[in-house]
């Protein structure tokens, strides 16, 4: 049983899927001074925010999620009647902003809105179950893996797999404490990178068994060949190349491919001191002995920020657009590549036009959780 993606909608600082891909191709950076929260106190002054008018509106991530789900249900013509549809939501920060804002005398956040079930149900009535995975920045990668498993074992006829996150003061405060100097943009794999910045956004995909989609004469946007998962069990915040490599190998094994089959990597690329050299080293060790000239490497966080729970599925969505258009966006913010990238083929400076059939998508998170997905074009 192979899972195919029959719908994909998203929201980032640039807008919807079409607007976001256009911005990526143009090499635009969506970073701007924080629209809310006291940046000087937090030690973080910039972010990749959605300009929706009121940054302290309660349940913003839920609203974005509901919007993406509504759009994808319409686009994929997802029919719930007589079918069991599970929804999986990946998130890093959830609706934590509501908890942060809860002060003396205030009403606390409503528990019914904590886990995104209401948001999903409002856009997809009849959904059988809503599972929320709070797996930090790898959350939607774990959701994608579970979605494939649910389809494989026949637990669901279709799976809505989604992600969402907004800014939260406590997360920004950590970034402010750990970065040497506040970054004004994310510069993945760049010698002068200053660290990561958060991006706001949401994403929703529909996954269905390929056989059913083909039998009904419908078209798919791409195929999920496999998702590999691992846990470093090493350090809460510092990445571990050993754990990341295990997730890559697991993904290749599940996808039934060898490293030479991968044509494109959409890297995690957070622009932090530790992630980028670690990730590049893993890529070099996995790919350069096998594949000459090796896959193209791009990354999207320089353009849209680190969208946390949505991050992996945002990269998946970009992979689908690359399949569709044959255009690979550059790594926004990368000007002087780090040494560890030597021997790899980062997309720098401008869009590369090349037909891509197989892409590998990375997402690593707090707590040493790693997810690596392998996608394939369907046409």
């Amino acid at each position: 049983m192979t899972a195919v993606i029959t719908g994909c909608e998203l929201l980032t600082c640039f807008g919807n899927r079409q607007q976001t891909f256009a911005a990526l191709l143009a090499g635009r950076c969506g970073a701007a001074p924080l629209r809310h929260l006291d940046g000087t106190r937090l030690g973080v002054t910039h972010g990749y925010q959605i300009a929706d008018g009121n940054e302290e509106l309660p349940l913003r991530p839920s609203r974005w999620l509901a919007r993406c789900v509504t759009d994808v249900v319409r686009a994929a013509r997802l029919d719930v009647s007589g079918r069991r549809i599970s929804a999986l939501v990946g998130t890093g920060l959830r609706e934590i902003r509501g908890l942060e804002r809860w002060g003396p005398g205030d009403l606390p956040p409503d528990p019914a809105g904590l886990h995104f079930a209401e948001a999903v149900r409002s856009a997809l009535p009849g959904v059988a179950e809503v599972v929320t995975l709070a797996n930090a920045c790898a959350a939607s990668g774990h959701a994608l893996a579970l979605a494939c498993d649910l389809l494989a074992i026949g637990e669901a006829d279709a799976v809505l797999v989604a992600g969402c996150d907004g800014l939260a003061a406590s997360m920004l405060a950590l970034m402010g404490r750990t970065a040497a100097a506040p970054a004004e943009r994310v510069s993945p794999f760049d010698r002068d990178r200053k660290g990561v910045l958060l991006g706001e956004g949401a994403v929703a995909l529909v996954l269905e068994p390929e056989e059913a989609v083909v039998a009904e004469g419908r078209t798919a946007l791409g195929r999920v060949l496999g998702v590999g998962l691992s846990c470093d069990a090493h350090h809460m915040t510092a990445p571990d190349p050993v754990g990341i490599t295990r997730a890559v190998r697991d993904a290749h094994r599940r996808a039934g491919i060898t490293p030479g089959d991968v044509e494109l990597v959409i890297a995690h690329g957070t622009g932090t001191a530790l992630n980028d050299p670690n990730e590049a080293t893993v890529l070099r060790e996995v790919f350069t002995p096998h594949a000459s000239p090796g896959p193209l490497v791009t990354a999207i966080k320089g353009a849209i920020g680190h969208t946390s729970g949505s991050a992996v599925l945002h990269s998946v969505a970009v992979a689908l657009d690359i399949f569709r258009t044959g255009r690979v966006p550059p790594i926004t913010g990368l000007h002087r590549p780090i040494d560890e990238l030597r021997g790899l083929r980062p997309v720098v400076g401008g869009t590369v036009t090349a037909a891509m059939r197989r892409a590998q998508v990375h997402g690593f998170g707090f707590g040493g959780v790693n997810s690596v997905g392998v996608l394939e074009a369907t046409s």
Partner: protein
Amino acid sequence: MSAVTAPPIITGWGIVSALGTGAAEFTEAVLRGADGAVDASGMFNEPLPRNTACVLPDFDIRERLGRKGTSTYDRLTGLTVHACGLALEDAGLPARAPDTEEVGLVLGTNLGSARSTWEFDRKTYLQDRPYLVNPALFPNAAFNAAAGQTAIRYGLRGINTTLAAGPPAALAALRYARNALRGGHATAMIAGAAEEYSPQNAWLARHWHGDRQARLLGEAATLFALEPAPVGAARRGRAELLAVELVTGEADSEAVSATVEDCVRRALDLAQVAPEDVDLVVTCGGPANCSRTRAEEQALGRLLPQTDCRRHRVADTAGDCLAAAAGVQLATVLAWFCSPQLRPRRAVALVTSLGWDGAAGAAVFRRCPDDRSDHRL
């Protein structure tokens, strides 16, 4: 039933709760009918909505888990790490690499540590010099901190996932663990849920439940080792996980009653268990005037007409442990499976749970045919 689809088996468990720490102590307390309520007023400087709670006022992370690596643990992490160690030991699973490469962990939670999140934010904003906030404490404000720290402590390198849910969190975790085993992501899964007691949780729960006096809160960490049938059968099986289901619905109490009924029906069908064959039902329970408690009771009344089925409501003695509620319910099932008062041999138990967002969970367990549990009384 083929080996592939045979139900996975709970081969060990660990619990840290007001009713006891470890399977043996908890089992003894449940079967004795012990009451876990204690005076919690000395635990925190902040005021509490109620001074009595089913908590562990003397739980000390360093005393229980040593100094190494524990300095940045918050209470939730400490409870979780302790329960996981007990579960690994009880199941006879290794606790260090390389043998733990394929052991995964899935933890259900509500808000992670609401206290850690809230305090970190307050200190950042309210202290004169915000740089005094210890960055090493930050990861506790991430929702998956407890699962990450637990993996580090025991070298659990398989899949590692934190699920956000309300009271059914442990059932969501069991379901996730079962699917992870089927999907080949791990050879064994440690699955469960944890909740810490804190003024933040106590006040949140008071708002959420809308009752000021009637509900006793609790805290607990409950973790269960789940292994595929062939492996599990070779170990000391405690219970087969015949079915675990989650259904989402509207949050009003009438809808919740229908949702939980639907969920239980589905779980019993999948478990191929007739309602009259259920020997034990363990619910969270709660005040009789609570509309959600009534909704669940009405659903169970419609489903299980027999009167000889044993009932156990955990909130009466272990407190309402919020995200850990269903975990305490499952631990209570395993305790009862050690009792000769239940039908000998293959007793069947049902656990039901209601979320705050309209979700319902149900799980069906059967005592393993050859239960050589050394906790049997």
